[in-house]
């Protein structure tokens, strides 16, 4: 199994930390992983993206041209990465703020109302965990127990009291993700 | 007449003065009348008197005193031009139980190494800085230094230093005295016996400060360079007294022993 994922959105949406939690979950499942961010001033208020690769084998390049899955959280990222999804691959997006939805028919498209759900749960910070839950529903590449271990490893000990809330958010994502047909 | 041996003249019971063993027997390369030899001797004597020869590491500069390690018999690091305070910073931090001093000239300390000395003083590195200010570049052949006086001719200011062309002479001692990291900042000279004694006292105090962990001690020695100034050693001393001392007034600029807390609080209030 090799899963090449791009996660892209605005800086501040938790793109990089979601990628890190996913990668750490892979580590907990004894997979090979890489997490390659875009970095620099563009991150500050601009777009942020991270390539995460999970694999049973040693990972060659941490930078790839095409992706098995694109997780898209804003319009500029959709514009940039829709074409980069491999035929038969997955595009998951949050429709909040999307004015031109994806048009490709040779890939599977899913949506998750993560911003809306996070607002309903009263904490925008768990937005990215709802998205992560949605992704794991579509592609259960790591077991949920390992996701929880990865989460624990990724967030500082002083925030560990928030682990149950994050788990709730992931479960919410599992529930609310929908395939767009 | 029987041959007279030197031992017939210099006898133990007549001995009133002896070269410290911390100075090597190497013949110094300094020009006649140069202040370096005297200051080297004072540093060596203080090291001997404090019994710290085995614990002292010197950092020599680029300039006439680049070979200071040939004369003072301790372990040395020969630093790149101006960088002695950075080198000394690491040595002291990695071996805090040792005594560490830099020995720098005016080109080294005030020009190319201005950033390093200011920041070492600002961090309050627990080191001693000996700063020889003779207002000229000696080793490279008498070029203008940051401390060259206005109107003073040098190889690169042949018509005399002009403010509009070269800027003002820098008073490093006054500058570092404003930094709260320094604990003892003084300006001395070695042109006569009384001055030599005062300078030695200052050097001793600086090393004692280091022993007590008080921060940076900075000793400027206003010095002569008869070769660079193109006068004989006697004239050089006269010229220094007449021209250098009024612009670079001697004496302590700061002594935190008197009231360290007040100094820091004043600085932080702005």
């Amino acid at each position, binding site marked *: 199994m090799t899963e090449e994922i791009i996660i892209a959105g605005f800086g501040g949406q938790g793109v990089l930390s979601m990628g*890190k939690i996913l*990668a*750490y979950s892979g*580590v907990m499942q004894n997979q*090979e*992983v*890489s*997490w*390659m*961010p875009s*970095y*620099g*001033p563009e991150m500050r208020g601009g777009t942020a993206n991270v390539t995460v690769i999970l694999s049973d084998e040693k*990972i*060659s*390049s*941490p*930078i*790839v*041209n095409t992706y098995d899955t694109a997780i898209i959280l804003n319009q500029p990222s959709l514009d940039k990465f829709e074409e980069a999804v491999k035929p038969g691959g997955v595009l998951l997006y949050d429709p909040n703020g999307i004015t031109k939805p994806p048009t490709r028919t040779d890939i599977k498209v899913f949506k998750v109302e993560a911003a809306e759900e996070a607002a309903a749960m009263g904490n925008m910070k768990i937005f990215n965990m709802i998205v992560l839950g949605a992704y794991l529903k579509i592609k259960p590449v790591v077991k949920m127990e390992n996701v929880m271990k990865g989460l624990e*490893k*990724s967030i500082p000990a002083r925030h560990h009291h928030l682990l149950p809330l994050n788990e709730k958010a992931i479960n919410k994502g599992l529930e609310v993700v929908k395939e767009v047909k | 007449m029987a041959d007279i041996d030197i031992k017939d003249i210099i006898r133990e019971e007549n001995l009133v003065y002896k070269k410290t063993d911390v100075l090597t027997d190497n013949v110094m390369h300094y020009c006649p009348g140069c202040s370096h030899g005297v200051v080297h001797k004072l540093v060596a004597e203080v090291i001997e008197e404090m019994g710290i*020869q*085995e*614990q*002292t*590491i010197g*950092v020599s500069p680029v300039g006439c005193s*680049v070979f200071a*390690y040939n004369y003072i*018999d*301790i*372990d*040395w*690091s*020969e*630093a*790149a031009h101006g*960088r002695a305070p*950075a*080198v*000394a*910073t*690491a*040595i002291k*931090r*990695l*071996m805090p139980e*040792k005594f560490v001093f830099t020995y720098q000239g005016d080109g080294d300390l005030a020009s190319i190494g201005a*950033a*390093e000395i*200011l*920041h070492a003083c600002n961090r309050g590195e627990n080191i001693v800085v000996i700063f020889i200010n003779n207002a000229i570049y000696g080793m490279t052949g008498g070029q203008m230094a940051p401390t060259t006086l206005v109107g003073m001719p040098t190889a690169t200011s042949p018509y005399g230093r002009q403010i509009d062309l070269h800027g003002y002479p820098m008073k490093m001692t006054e500058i570092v005295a404003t930094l709260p990291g320094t604990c003892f900042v003084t300006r001395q000279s070695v042109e006569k016996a009384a001055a030599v004694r005062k300078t030695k006292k200052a050097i001793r105090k600086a090393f004692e400060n280091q022993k007590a962990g008080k921060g940076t001690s900075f000793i400027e020695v206003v010095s002569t360079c008869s070769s660079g100034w193109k006068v004989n050693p006697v004239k050089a001393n006269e010229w220094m007294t007449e021209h250098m001392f009024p612009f670079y007034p001697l004496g302590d600029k700061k002594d935190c022993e008197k009231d360290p807390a007040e100094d820091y609080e004043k600085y932080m209030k702005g």
Partner: protein
Amino acid sequence: MGELRLMKGNEVIAEAAIRAGADGYFGYPITPQSEIMETLMVRKPWEETGMVVLQAESEVASINMVYGGAGCGKKVMTSSSSPGVSLMMEGISYIAGAELPCLIVNIVRGGPGLGTIQPSQADYFQSVKGGGHGDYRLIVLAPNSVQEMNDHVGLGFDLAFKYRNPALILSDGVIGQMMEKVELSDYKPRLTEEEIIEKYGDWAHIGKPANRSQNVVTSLELQSEIMEKRNQHLIEKYASMQEDVMYEEIMTEDAEYLFVAFGSSSRICQKAIELARAEGIKVGLFRPITLFPFATNQLKELGQKMKGILTVEMNAGQMVEDVKLAVECKVPVEWFGRFGGIIPSPQEIVDALKHKIIGG
């Protein structure tokens, strides 16, 4: 098995330094490597191992702090990125001239000048050929994974002390900023004062006991006859480093064509090999791990069996010169690269192989 973690290349440099028993780190912030000092400052190793960490006023100062620390026989290091490493060149030349061991990490960004903060390999010449003044060489290591970033810290210190010569880790923003799984090294204690006296007491300035002559760390020698001998000694030392040459060959057994790439480019080449082989092109990879010493003989032997060689570098063609020298122009050698902070894609590399070598 050591402790497993998911870490950034930059962070692991800091962690590995603490675990390698480093005595001091002196640095100045610059993108894309500031996480190294930031990680150290969060870790506070001075409380744990006694390691000194200091933010200097400039790269000029930090490399001279390394000079001072290395002269004490201590395990000291600095890190920076290209413009900062240019500022360090004076100090690096002095450290090499005074024959001191130390570790320098360069997380390369694109240049010249202020350039870009994105990854690049444009400092190959500076690292391998000199950069500072005078005849000197650095031991240059080129990790291509976060694991190797960890491993090369200990290795770099070992080689630096073996040869009393500065070692440099030449990495870039790809490896520095990416996270991978890493098995951390076990803790190695810092040397005690007694151990330093025993091991390095014949050259380090650690205080002169009455029973030995003074130790002076200097690169200065005004007598040409003596200086020439010193140069001769250095040249022989650099030649002797060949025994520590390191390289990796990937899928070369049946290869007709060869990529030569180091660091992050070599990772992308591995993906390019997958793509090319899917099209039936038999291509392999030769990866120099030490850039100095360079695996000239090994590359000559392998390279001369090939129909053609493509070096892949994130620069305008630097290592390609050493590859051409190695194969003595008996095989076509071409270069492909992107620069300015652009990372070549695996497909671009395959296309370049087709156009420049196979069809060329």
